[in-house]
């Protein structure tokens, strides 16, 4: 399992989270924001980002429309739908739960010893 696969699985949640905190945003903005949050430990390529956006849109969690960026470029802006907002909550909870369980295996606490 390459490192990339992990991020692909979680890309959807990162995208949703990013849009939730930033409001409507274009693809480049989302990519930069994710890189920034990760402390530049992640590099987001089109090949990962755009299929994820497409899938989320097809699932109805985000919607998109064409707008103009800060530096006057035509760009497609993505925003959360109501279903998307619900999904962010659900997915974050699931992720936290899974993370907590995994953490017990990766760095076992006293009770296991």
């Amino acid at each position, binding site marked *: 399992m390459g490192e990339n696969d992990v991020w692909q699985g979680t890309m959807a949640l990162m995208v949703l989270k990013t849009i939730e905190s930033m409001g409507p945003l274009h*693809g480049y903005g989302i990519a930069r924001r994710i890189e920034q949050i990760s402390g530049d430990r992640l590099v987001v390529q089109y090949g990962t980002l755009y299929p994820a956006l497409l899938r989320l849109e097809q699932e109805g969690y985000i919607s998109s429309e064409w707008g103009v960026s800060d530096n006057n470029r035509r760009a497609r802006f993505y925003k959360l739908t109501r279903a998307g907002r619900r999904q962010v909550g659900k997915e974050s909870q699931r992720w936290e739960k899974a993370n907590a369980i995994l953490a017990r295996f990766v760095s076992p606490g006293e009770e296991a010893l």
Partner: protein
Amino acid sequence: MRKLRVWLLRLWAQFGRDLPEKEFAEEIETHLQMQIEDNLRSGMDPKQARREALVKSGGMEVTMQAYRDGNSLSLVETLSQDLRYTIRQLRKNPGFAVTAILVLTLGIGATVSIFSFADAALIKPLPYREPSRLVVIFGTIPLGSRFHLSFPDYYDLKKLNKVFTSFEVYDSNGFMLSTPDGGQLAPGGRVSAGFFRTLGVTPILGRDFLPGEDKPSASRTVILSYAAWQSRYGKRADVLGQTVTLDGHLNTVIGVLPPEFHFAPAAPADFWAAEHDESSCRACHWLFGLARLKDGVSIQTAQAEMTTIARQLATQYPDSNRDQGEAVVGLPEVIVGDIRPIILVLLGGAALLLLIAIVNVASLLLVRTESRKREIAVRGVLGASRRRLFRQFVTEGMVLAASASAIGLAAADGAMHLLTRLIPTDTLAGMPYLQGLGLTPRVLAFTLAISLCSAVVFSLTPIVSMSREEMRAGLTEGGRAASGTVWHKFGANLVVIELAMAVVLLVGAGLLGKSFYRLLQVDPGLEPTNLATIQLSTPRANYSKDPQIIALEQQILDRVSALPGVTSAALTNKLPVGDGDFTTSFQIVGRPNHGEDNEVAYRLVSTDYFHTLKTRLLEGRYFNANEDATKPHVILINRALARQYFPGERAVGIFLNYDGAPPESAMQVVGVIDDLREGPLDTPARAAIYAPSDQHPISSFSVVARTSVDAQSLLPTLTATIHQIDPGIAAFGASTMQERIRDSPPAYLHRASAWLVGSFAALALLLSVVGLYGVIAYSVSQRTREIGVRMALGAQRGMVYRLVLQQASGLIAVGIVIGLVGSFAASALMRSLLFATAAWDVFTLAAVSAVLGISAILASYLPARRAASVNPLEALRAE
């Protein structure tokens, strides 16, 4: 839910997909530009900024592809790719595509059209409640087992039996319908009151007969068939309560039967009247019984019960009921019993043709796979997965099967109607269940099934022939696989069988066709061109006395002969080229009789009959105009009678008399005519006696008119003239003599069977030729290297031709010889169908062999030419 949404959106994106892709390209472009701008801002030079941006963001094309994948259904996508590829492949090789689809279309078309008959006649349930519990009760006499019952017998059988829940009767004798334009024969039957209740049929309009409505005292009522309601009353609802005059009685219309109702034993039937005749005559048989079996009672039990009662009646009424019995036959058996074996045989034949067609197309596919080995190997090496390649074969198989099925279905629809046209009109009218003939859901399902089966075969053929090893081998060497040899042997044997079958069918068709031709060449003893005929039936009430009839006949003759275009007219009690019925037995006056039954055809004709028909007088004279009842009785005889009873002597002057008639009714022979065919043309002329109608008037007769114009154009005038004289006369069956000959039952039979066998033969010929082509082409494709080597070693093109054609003619010769032997057996079986044609008719056999041989050689010439045009250098280099 979400998944469905995604799937639908992707499906939607299949259509008009240019725009989203363009937009996406733009979106990515923006992304790239923004990255470049950021890079510039962080101090890179433009070139570096761009490169860094490209590296960082990943490949553009890959992303586009990922987007495309994400926005499409891969199955639909690859399917349409496979389809496009398949169609390109087929168009590249139109010869293959056309042949394969044509062969398959014919196989499917033939099978489907015959199946639709089986569907209409045998599979579709009869329109009655629990049809399998219904039986028909026939009277049996020593002559046979499907005769009528008398009313008193029916009454006793109904009263005494304990096996039927209900027992009704019907007849199918039709009515004389009075119309403003004159009398017409109307098809129909009379039934006892519970007839429709026994069948389980309820009128859609009005009511059924009430119990007791069939008593002689009850007022007369009639129920219409749906077709009659439609054609005679324009589906008007106020038809109920209207009156209609049948056989001179007023009948009130009380109901209309459902459209799907039919009753073949009495079909066609427009009017269903209640039976009012409770005749007490036990020797008068005119009814058939219809009964429903009690639960748990089998036909055998019912039959045993009927036999017991019949024996009782025979003891009770020995005069009328000796040797009489009843036969109980299931109604479905009565309706389709005769046609079932014919349909099953045809279906079997069609299925065989279809099987051969499928195998032939499979063999063509094999040839093509051989020549595509290299291409497929290249695709395999370039990374096409095995599954993808197989899916390509499956797509090709499905395209072939689907297009052939679609065309085959259309062809079957046409063939069905052509086939019904082969059935004589009267016979067809007696098979009302064939009205359900057509592309019913069952027929479509059947087509789908055979289409799928053939698609499976066509998909598997190349897959099996092309194992993974061979795929790789295809690149390196044109090695011959063991499976190739096996196929070759199987294919060669199959082709021999196909050729033999084609010979048998072609010979059959040829012999039947020749019989038909010979039948039309038979001399009917008259001049059939420009002869119009019409049959008449006079109402008994107005024409019961001889002078009335004679006056009417004279009036008809005068009026008809005065018509423009008519040169002469005459009457007869029965038209020539009929069933030969209406006979009498006679004695020769002055000669001892040893109790033999001299039964001969008996015709009562007017004076000008022989002039009008243009018969040939061999001896003596025709009748004179004044030879009526006041003159001595005279007759003419035909050559057959003269030869049979007066060989070597002069028949003119001899007296004949009817069997058991008083001496004063003796008739003198005044002339002998050449045989006029009274009966069917395919049997030898029978002895016949002709007497002047003025001496023996009868109430139903036919008119013949010799015309100077086209006889067909005169038929409407003829009917109109009769009705002008008396609208009460029923005039029917107007036709020209040529039509009578052409449509007579033996002509129908020969024409229909010649067509039927002929179409099967044409299919068989085509299939065997295609099969031969497939086998030879396959063997050539396998031998390309060998041929190349031979040519490199100096073999001439002529030699290559010889090589291939020798192989082909071997197969052809074996096939033809086996076929000829088979046709001896087959034509011996159908000798009874042949007329004036020997089963081993040399001309037919030679013609069939020639046709088959030439077409087969032509079919093998194509691969031979391909073999001869092999470039030895290329053939060798290809290794």
